[in-house]
């Protein structure tokens, strides 16, 4: 089936191979030219920003504006997913539960609750650790944020969707997400108070190898962590709601 389409595609793919061959060959420029951006960042990060993870320095300072844009892509995609899935979410309250879930729901024992707490707490600690140590070791708002979001997943796995819904208020998470996204912009606007360009790192840079090092880098990382974790929880929410609720009238 779709033979013309395949013919078209394979003709294109052959052409692509030629393009790749022509496009990928040279690397003619001397190495110090090709390497200069990396070299500048690697030599300047510690001297200028007192932090040890150069990737975080690029992410939240040298090229922080890119990260702002990326964060809003995430923000917009989450809003879009909520928008697309809204019809179901608004219409239905009837939640499907399988037997196991229902029994869990009716009389969740304290032991069960403890067990979940035991699972969630380390996740939370780990996530927060990753978010806050972004400027020192691998990690930061993006990675830590996703780890934090998986803590919410554990609540669902242990307790089922009704409890999940009760524990995590949808509108509260929406507000947190907006706070994360808006917080990034607000931190960037701090610089206006000093009459410096947007996103300038105006806070004291602190001592190297400590949590407070890097000025606004740590703060932006936190805001990102908030935004990413809330965004992912919202996505999880939307998909769970979609999956576990009954088909309504269209």
């Amino acid at each position, binding site marked *: 089936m779709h033979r013309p389409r395949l013919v078209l595609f394979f003709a294109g793919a052959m052409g692509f191979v030629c393009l790749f061959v022509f496009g990928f060959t040279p690397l003619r420029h001397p190495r110090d030219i090709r390497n200069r951006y990396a070299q500048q960042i690697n030599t300047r*990060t510690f*001297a200028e920003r007192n932090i040890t993870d150069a990737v975080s320095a690029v992410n939240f300072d040298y090229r922080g504006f890119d990260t702002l844009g990326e964060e809003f892509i995430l923000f917009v995609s989450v809003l879009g997913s909520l928008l697309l899935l809204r019809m179901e979410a608004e219409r239905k309250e009837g939640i499907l539960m399988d037997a196991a879930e229902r029994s869990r729901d009716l009389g969740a024992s304290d032991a069960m609750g403890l067990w979940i707490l035991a699972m969630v707490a380390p996740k939370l600690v780990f996530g927060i650790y990753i978010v806050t140590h972004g400027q020192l070791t691998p990690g930061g708002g993006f990675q830590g944020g996703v780890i934090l979001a998986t803590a919410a997943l554990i609540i669902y796995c242990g307790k089922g969707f009704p409890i999940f819904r009760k524990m995590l208020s949808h509108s509260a998470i929406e507000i947190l997400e907006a706070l994360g996204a808006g917080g990034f912009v607000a931190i960037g606007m701090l610089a206006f108070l000093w009459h410096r360009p947007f996103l300038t790192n105006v806070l004291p840079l602190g001592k190297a190898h400590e949590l407070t090092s890097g000025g606004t880098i740590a703060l932006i990382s936190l805001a990102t962590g908030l935004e990413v974790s809330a965004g992912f929880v919202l996505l999880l929410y939307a998909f769970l709601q979609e999956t576990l609720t009954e088909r309504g009238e269209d």
Partner: protein
Amino acid sequence: MANAFTYAGYATAAWLFLIGLYGVVTSRHLVHLCLSLTVIQASTYVLFTVIGYRQGLPAPIFTDGIKPGAAAVDPVVQALMLTDIVVEATVVALLLAITVRIHRRAGTADPNSVNIMQG
């Protein structure tokens, strides 16, 4: 020698791009289509990774034993990829949401049978 990596990486990236494209073109299920997209996207990761790689140099994290300011692999491309990974996951989520809605509306997730508009 560094060039050998670069070429291997380029070839990998090119292959992933084309095979992903093939997946999208021949896809019969929207979820499959979304996942083929992630393969195309992975090709850009491979490309950036090999471009930023410097053989024998450490990661650009200047803690244990690596002097601040020492030569390391390229942190710029890593920063570009890092954000991209998280972001693209949400974009795929957006596509999955569309998929779910289409299936609900049309009763099928085959991209070839979803054509209300033609001509």
